[in-house]
């Protein structure tokens, strides 16, 4: 296939921007070419519309019918164990590393600088 990752029903997405930045969600339906209806019952994202550019696509996908209820999404997410699978992806690890770096204190930053130069 020319493209690996598709925006489709059941695609697990990582929210880059907005109110729920840093959380994962599942594509439940599509409003138009630029807006999705997403739901993240396990990650605390309420069922809402989101812009495509607020979102990054992951490799993970679950099998849900178009526009299905939040409970069904929750069941399928736990069945496919998406939370552990997502934690293994490089996107998740990079996000964690970024968060750690932002939480460094002044002394930690100094230690990091020293460790980089040696």
């Amino acid at each position, binding site marked *: 296939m020319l493209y690996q990752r598709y925006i489709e*029903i059941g695609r697990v997405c990582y929210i880059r921007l907005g109110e729920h930045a840093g959380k994962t969600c599942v594509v439940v339906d599509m409003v138009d070419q630029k807006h999705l209806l997403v739901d993240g019952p396990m990650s605390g994202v309420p069922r809402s519309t989101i812009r495509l550019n607020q979102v990054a696509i992951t490799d993970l996908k679950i099998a849900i019918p178009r*526009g299905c209820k939040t409970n069904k999404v929750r069941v399928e997410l736990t069945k496919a164990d998406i939370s552990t699978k997502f934690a293994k992806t490089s996107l998740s690890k990079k996000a964690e590393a970024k968060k750690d770096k932002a939480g460094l204190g002044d002394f930690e930053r100094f230690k990091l600088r020293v460790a980089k130069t040696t």
Partner: protein
Amino acid sequence: MKFKCAELKEYQIVGKPLSKANEKTPIYKMRIFAPDEIVAKSRFWYFLRQLKKVRKVNGEILRMTLVSNKSPTKIKNFGIWVRYDSRSGSHNMYREYRDVSATGAVTQCYRDMAARHRARAHSIQIMKVEVVKAGECKRPIIKQMHDSSIKFPLPHRILKYNKKSIF
């Protein structure tokens, strides 16, 4: 002149001409899409004046309620019947939008009319907003989303969001 920065709100406004003595006056109900209550009342009188022989001076608003969205997580196809003034005349249009709420669809309509026809808000009249079933939609841009196994890749994706300030 309407100033809109966020999504419009839907108001149901009921008003009637003032009655003299014991005469029965008709009561009119309108569905108004406006950014706030003040504009909503103003538009109500604007439309009522055009349609019936009532003016704000000779009338009263009986009730104004903010209509909330009954299904904010269900995507619907909206057919919007618009009347607008172009530079050389007045025209009717039927436009379709896909959104989660009627207010979202009407807001899209105003933006779209401004973009495609340079129509300002004051020259646009929303005549009717209705949910249209998928099979009855006419516009191909809306119909293309009616595929149950819809999927598309994101080729040539450029992420431009930069939160850092320039200075």
